[in-house]
């Protein structure tokens, strides 16, 4: 103890210097936007590399569950392909369907790190700008919607999951078409809250909720969750619906990044739309 005190006293100037520099860099990074972003993407790259290695080792442990999930998804997709439908129209057979343009592209990615127990949760995925991932792209899991890309480094990306204070997903009730905003109150990673649905709408337990595709981040009609229970806010007569999320964020591993080739067009239109001067 005495030696330690002597040591500190002997190098007190160096210690004071280091302490003050740490304080200075802390201020620099927290109060300057540019430095903040630089620091964030550097730490993103470093921690991404680290968690990537950890994930490499641990991903074998849940291969069984993942396989099961993938084969279920495979089966669902197989049901949708043309060969599994009986062709009842023998008269017209379109060879090349020019009436449809491909808008959404899917890029498979793996979640290498993610939290569910904080107020604002992020996922780190192993795809970055070198694979074409950009900010504001949607991320979906095999079961439903997962989040939105908020920061990209060359090989990794941070995804703001639905379990985040600023996450807002425009969600529609499948059976009657009323839509509202899905938010997360920060308590339970299994449930989120749907607001802005007026109290006169008929809803029932287990009703399916889908994405509305309003801003072009997610495709339309992706599963969000099901209605668990609800309360009516007496002051404004709107529902507060408790939603059982389709995605289980606690064991999320394989996701798809959604690229919308028309997103820029939508954004430009929204930005340029101003009310005409009358």
């Amino acid at each position, binding site marked *: 103890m005495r030696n330690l005190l002597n040591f500190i006293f002997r190098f007190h100037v160096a210690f004071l210097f280091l302490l003050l520099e740490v304080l200075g860099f802390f*201020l*620099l990074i927290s109060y*300057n936007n540019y430095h903040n972003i*630089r620091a964030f993407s550097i730490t993103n790259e470093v921690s991404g590399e680290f968690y990537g290695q950890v994930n490499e080792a641990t991903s074998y442990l849940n291969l069984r569950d993942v396989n099961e999930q993938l084969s279920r998804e495979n089966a669902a997709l197989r049901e949708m392909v043309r060969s599994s439908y009986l062709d009842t129209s023998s008269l017209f057979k379109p060879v090349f369907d020019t009436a449809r343009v491909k808008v959404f592209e899917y890029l498979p990615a793996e979640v290498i790190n993610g939290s569910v127990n904080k107020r604002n949760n992020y996922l780190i995925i192993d795809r970055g700008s070198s694979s074409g991932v950009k900010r504001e792209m949607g991320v979906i899991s095999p079961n439903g919607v997962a989040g939105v890309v908020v920061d990209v480094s060359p090989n990794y990306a941070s995804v703001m999951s639905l379990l985040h204070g600023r996450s807002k997903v425009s969600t529609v009730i499948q059976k009657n078409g009323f839509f509202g905003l899905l938010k997360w109150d920060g308590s339970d990673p299994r449930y989120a809250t749907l607001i802005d649905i007026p109290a006169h709408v008929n809803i029932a337990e287990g009703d399916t909720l889908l994405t509305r595709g309003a801003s072009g981040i997610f495709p339309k009609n992706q599963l969000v969750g099901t209605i668990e229970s609800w309360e009516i806010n007496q002051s404004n007569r709107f529902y507060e619906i408790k939603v059982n999320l389709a995605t289980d964020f606690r064991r999320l591993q394989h996701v798809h990044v959604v690229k919308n080739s028309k997103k820029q067009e939508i954004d430009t239109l929204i930005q340029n739309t101003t009310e005409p001067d009358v």
Partner: protein
Amino acid sequence: MFRIVAQNIIRFVLLVLLQILVLNNIQLGGLINPYAYVLVILSLPIETPRWLTLLIGVVLGLSIDVFTRTLGMHMTATIFLAFLRPVVLQYMAPRDGYEYGTTASIRDHGYLWYLTYAGILILLHHLFLFFVEAFEFENFFRTGLKAILSSLVTLVLVVILQMFTVNRKQSQI
């Protein structure tokens, strides 16, 4: 003693004002931003304790940062300067040590000594500051060039400001 403290405080205020009101508006070709406020640290009495130099560095850096809205940027660089000054002073000390009461100025030690002393410290301060500002090593040579050119201009300014103080003191005596 009181006279020295007062003198340093007045120098501090005047140089910070000079920096934020005049020098921060000078940007020659996007390459040269002189930071003559370092003269506050350079002109402290030689006997100033090292911890006090560091604390003065913090206050000086923060004062500049508050007015340029770059909290932490000048602070880290000025602390670095304040840490190095005693080291450079020790390295450049005459054989018998500094005479008590002499100051780190042209008047007491001559041009050659002062240009070496101020040149080294200003260059190190500016390199640190410009690299903290860029916060990357991708444009290494451009950032380095900016730091070196700005150091030269700062050095010239510092020498000119020195002459002012020398003249004033001579007229006072």
